[in-house]
């Protein structure tokens, strides 16, 4: 039987941020402990106002070996990139 606490990935949204960003990982026995450990480890210097923790085993990642098939084709389809518009100067956060 595995006696190690499972690993959890920690995501933090800062006060001025819009998205939770990956900050690191913690070991914890359950979800509440994972939140508290993440709070104790990763928010000591006011890094954020919102925490997500996800069991590492739940994260499904793309295979680096497939990176070419997954991401290369988008490179030459410039019609998808929003670079052909003149953005009016008074629209700040497009």
């Amino acid at each position, binding site marked *: 039987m595995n006696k190690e*606490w499972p690993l959890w990935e920690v995501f933090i949204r800062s006060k001025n941020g819009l998205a939770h960003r990956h900050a690191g990982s*913690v*070991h*914890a*026995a*359950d979800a*509440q*402990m994972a939140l*508290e*450990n993440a*709070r*104790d*480890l990763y928010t*000591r210097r006011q890094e954020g106002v919102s925490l997500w923790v996800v069991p590492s085993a739940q994260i499904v990642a793309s295979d680096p070996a497939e990176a070419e098939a997954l991401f290369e084709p988008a490179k030459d389809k410039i019609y998808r990139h929003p670079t052909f518009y003149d953005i009016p100067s008074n629209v700040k956060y497009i």
Partner: protein
Amino acid sequence: MTTVRKDDLFEYALRLGDSALVLGHRLSEWCGHAPEMELDMAMSNLGLDLIGQARLFLTYAGEIEGQITGKPGRDEDQLAYLRDALDYRNFLLVEQPNGDWAATIARQLYFSTFQQLCFEKLAASADEQLAAIARKALPEIAYHVRFATEWTVRLGDGTEESKRRMQEGLNNLFRFTDELFASDEVEDRLAAAGIAPDAAALRPLWQARIEQVLREATLDVPPPHRPITGARKGHHTEHLGYLLAEMQFLQRAYPGARW
């Protein structure tokens, strides 16, 4: 409005500061030794919260001392590092050794549950400074209560061994909890002046909260025990002497050392 005696206020600020300082020190002893690295951090964070509270209370005590004597009072460092055990006013509960993780959690559960109830009242104190310190401390204490409560439940409703250790920790420390709700003339006068909360009145709420946590943790309420008291007179258990020797050694061996 009853006039407040300054030496009562000084005494009370010391009591609040010393309990926070001694418990903060005990928690710092876990750093590097906790069951997991994350818990090293948790213990350190809790300890730092308490030491921060101690700094505020002791600095305030020093200011009051200055008002009493007309000369500059001692500062927080002089009060923390240069008083001997007989002059310390912390609750006996917080000077008890850490023991195992369960005993540490039991001590935290008892103390933080009390501190939360006490500071909720203190936040409305007639003394502005005490009220301000209490208000600042309440969010910190809320986290301490949450941490201790969840660990009590995890250990109590855990394995055979964790349940046994948690029950032992709670049973062994229960004798030091009566003192939290006791009083003396100093605190009676301060309560009458609206400065300090009525400690005895906090007891039923504290008891109810503890019983609720223990129920959820499938643990028994500890059996009654002859209370061990003495803090308000500076009569401590033998543990405080060793704690202060370690905590104060550097300042006493190298007075005024800074780095």
